[in-house]
């Protein structure tokens, strides 16, 4: 049976009272002994130690170091005979050693609080949580009251090779240890935890040494997440490569103030994959000195074939709205946020034939195309921009705009134009589920065009 702190304390006190110097004591056996006649000692009837010493000693006593009892006795003796403030001299050999041991024990307790992994089990019909943990020092008694404070509402057991702790919702009791091979519990929920561990890891910051410093491999055998560490490290170079090789598209806009030249170069733009699928680039058109610019989303099937913006069904709706608002199409500049048609073939077996189904541009495609729009704005310098639809909204507002909510609100803090407004895209009118909704949206569009027109005059 190993000495424990309480036995050592009683023993040390009696040796101190007799005045036995440390070099004459031995703590190898269960009981200390000394080898000198009582008469040669200088007795010390009431030995004293500072409170800090007792705190330090309680930790040192748990260290897995056979020298600890002798070290503690040396310290307690020197505190009484040499310097009551000895503990302040942290570079003293004994103080230093004791503090290192205490630090190592504290750390081990902290790591036990961190690394115990409970598994849910049903024992005698009761929901119980069980864990197996291997500590470096003899800390089961010091470390487990923490789990009572935290998980006192359910019974649990923690097994370690040096001893086990059990909570039955009334008392904390201790029993002998258990080896890992005898601990047979699985918790399918560990897989959910592993999923989290995998996803929270950022491969761009791989630092294996740092991880190991804080979570020593000696603890890994009872950590479910440790099972996938090697896999995560192995995958890292590939993940980084995939990230850096993800193609990033951005249109290269010529450095000129000549609109025709800009358009010409846009016609051969193949910055993103949309170019290869579309018939041609559909660039903006209209009055190059317009005070009002209308920005739609992206060309559709008919625009793609003709090369002109807003000529398809949606274009016709816009034309009607413009007319009703009293705006001549020739007086304004019309363009789209994305300049190529994106489509997928219709499902032929469902009778789609060769129809091309319009598809919304992805974020990276929208982004790739944006320099063209910015150049058009720079050249035309409109006083007012009216964005039509969500894609145009993202391009010009820098965020997703809910049209229902934000139409009618005039923005004057945009870098693109003095006044920025948004309205329904004409295709949203075509897509309306009933004619009431369609005419409501159409009237909205007309009134938004009118507001835009008014803003050019203010």
């Amino acid at each position, binding site marked *: 049976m190993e000495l424990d702190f309480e036995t050592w304390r009683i023993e040390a006190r009696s040796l101190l009272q007799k005045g036995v110097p440390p070099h004459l004591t031995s703590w190898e056996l269960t009981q200390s002994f000394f080898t000198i006649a009582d008469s040669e000692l200088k007795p010390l009837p009431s030995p004293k130690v500072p409170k800090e010493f007792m705190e330090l000693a309680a930790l040192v006593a748990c260290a897995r170091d056979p020298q600890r009892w002798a070290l503690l006795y040396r310290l307690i003796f020197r505190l009484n005979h040499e310097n009551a403030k000895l503990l302040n001299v*942290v570079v003293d050999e004994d103080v*230093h050693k004791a503090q290192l041991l205490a630090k190592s024990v504290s750390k081990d307790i902290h790591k036990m609080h961190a690394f115990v*992994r409970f598994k849910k089990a049903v024992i005698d019909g009761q929901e119980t*949580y069980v864990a197996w943990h291997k500590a470096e020092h003899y800390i089961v008694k010091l470390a487990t009251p923490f789990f009572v404070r935290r998980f006192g509402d359910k019974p649990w057991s923690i097994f370690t090779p040096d001893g086990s702790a059990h909570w039955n919702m009334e008392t904390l009791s201790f029993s002998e240890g258990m080896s890992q091979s005898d601990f047979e519990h699985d918790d399918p929920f560990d897989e959910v935890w592993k999923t*989290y561990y995998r996803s929270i890891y950022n491969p761009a910051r791989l630092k294996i*040494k740092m991880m190991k410093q804080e979570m020593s491999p000696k603890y890994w055998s009872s950590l479910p997440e440790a099972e996938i560490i090697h896999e995560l490290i192995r995958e890292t170079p590939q993940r980084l490569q995939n990230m850096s090789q993800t193609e*990033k598209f951005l249109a290269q806009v010529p450095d000129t103030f000549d609109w025709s030249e800009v358009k010409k170069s846009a016609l051969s733009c193949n910055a993103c994959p949309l170019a290869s699928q579309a018939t041609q680039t559909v660039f903006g058109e209209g009055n190059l000195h317009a005070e009002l610019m209308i920005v739609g989303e992206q060309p559709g099937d008919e625009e793609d074939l003709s090369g002109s913006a807003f000529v398809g069904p949606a274009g016709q709706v816009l034309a009607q709205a413009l007319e009703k608002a009293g705006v001549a199409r020739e007086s304004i500049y019309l363009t789209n946020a994305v300049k190529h048609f994106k489509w997928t073939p219709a499902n032929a077996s469902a009778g789609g034939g060769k129809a091309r189904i319009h598809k919304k541009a992805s974020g*990276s495609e929208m982004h*790739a195309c944006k320099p063209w729009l910015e150049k058009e704005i720079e050249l035309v310098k409109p006083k007012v921009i009216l964005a039509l639809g969500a894609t145009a909204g993202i391009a010009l507002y820098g965020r997703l705009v*809910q049209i229902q909510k934000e139409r009618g609100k005039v923005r004057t803090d945009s870098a693109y134009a003095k006044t920025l407004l948004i309205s329904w895209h004409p295709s949203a009118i075509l897509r309306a589920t009933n004619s009431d909704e369609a005419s409501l949206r159409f009237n909205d569009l007309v009134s938004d065009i009118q507001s835009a027109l008014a803003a050019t005059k203010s």
Partner: protein
Amino acid sequence: MSLPDWNLIKSKLSILADAAKYDASCSSSGSHRKRDAKGMGNVEGMGICHSYAPDGRCISLLKILMTNFCIFDCKYCVNRVSSDVKRAKFSPDEIVTLTLEFYRRNYIEGLFLSSGIIESSDATMEKLIQVAKTLRQVHRFNGYIHLKVVAGSSQELIEEAGLWADRVSANVEMPVQKDLDILAPAKTIESATTSMNQIAEKVSEAKEEQKKSFRFRAPKFAPAGQTTQMIVGATGSTDSLILNSSQSLYRKYALRRVYYSAYSPIPHSDVLLPTEQPQLVRENRLYQADWLLRFYNFEAQELVNDENPDLPLDMDPKSAWALRNRQYFPVDVNSAAREQLLRVPGLGVRNVERILQMRPHRKISLLDLGKLRVPLKRTKYFVITSDHNPDVFLLDSQHLKKNIAPESTQLSLFDIKQTAVSGEI
């Protein structure tokens, strides 16, 4: 409650944890809560890191977004509206269940919950609050909760969040408005600092109330205070801009910490952003400088200025300051005042305290400093000790920089780790 579909939860979790990992905040310290007799969970002041990912970062909380759908288009963010990432959304109940199951198995200290903005800021914030409130009220959960303030949330909601959470925080993301204009056109520094101000006022108000109340304890408000995060290296902003911005945030809003997050390449990243590896050394130098501001009485202007707008990467900021201010040295470890000792390269706050404690009992030698694990390689040129220290005569040497700066330009992992844990430099 019916059993959740764990496979569905797992697939959402993989998206929404991935989406949250760029927020560097991980701390679970600074708060105290006792377990409720009818529930589980407590907070004992010191945070616990329950695991470490292979990136060396601690895992203390279940850090997730409620949803990564977002109406904003902040270029540095993997969740911006124009990003092509997969999207998902947790219900408040799913988050509550995950938190409780994770906590019960001792995987975590609690929950860190943020979200992309859907519908409106307030609608999103309300859902985050609902999660915290359910955990506290329905499940009597007293583990740690950190709620992120959704940009632009109203004051009432911020005040309610602080009632349930241990920490409430708003990210400024960038040191200056100019950077936000480029990368996050719909965000303003002011909106973040307005939230910070509201939190700071409420925190100090609640503390006052608590002091005054005897019989009935006034309710706590975000007892672990607030923090913020700045992304480093996504724009050309200098360390000087960053540190001056931090200093002013610390002074105005009593922040516990500013987190610096080296911009790291994200999948589907915006073309405006750098693709090279994150500036980890720079990030570490900023953390070191940040410690100097908070615990060593340094002013930002002493560390970075017009002539030296960026912290040097090849040495710690205190050594760099010492090299520029050699007239301040040597400092006698046996007689110098606390604030003088704190300025010595290699002497950290804890060692300064130890030296002060030891001085009445013992003359301190260079060897003693070695036992305290003071990095003599740096320190010996700046101190007078009880024994003969010939290196102090090299203080004015032109080659001093070469002597104290580490040979390799790469910061050793040990340095980083030490700093991260103890804050000592």
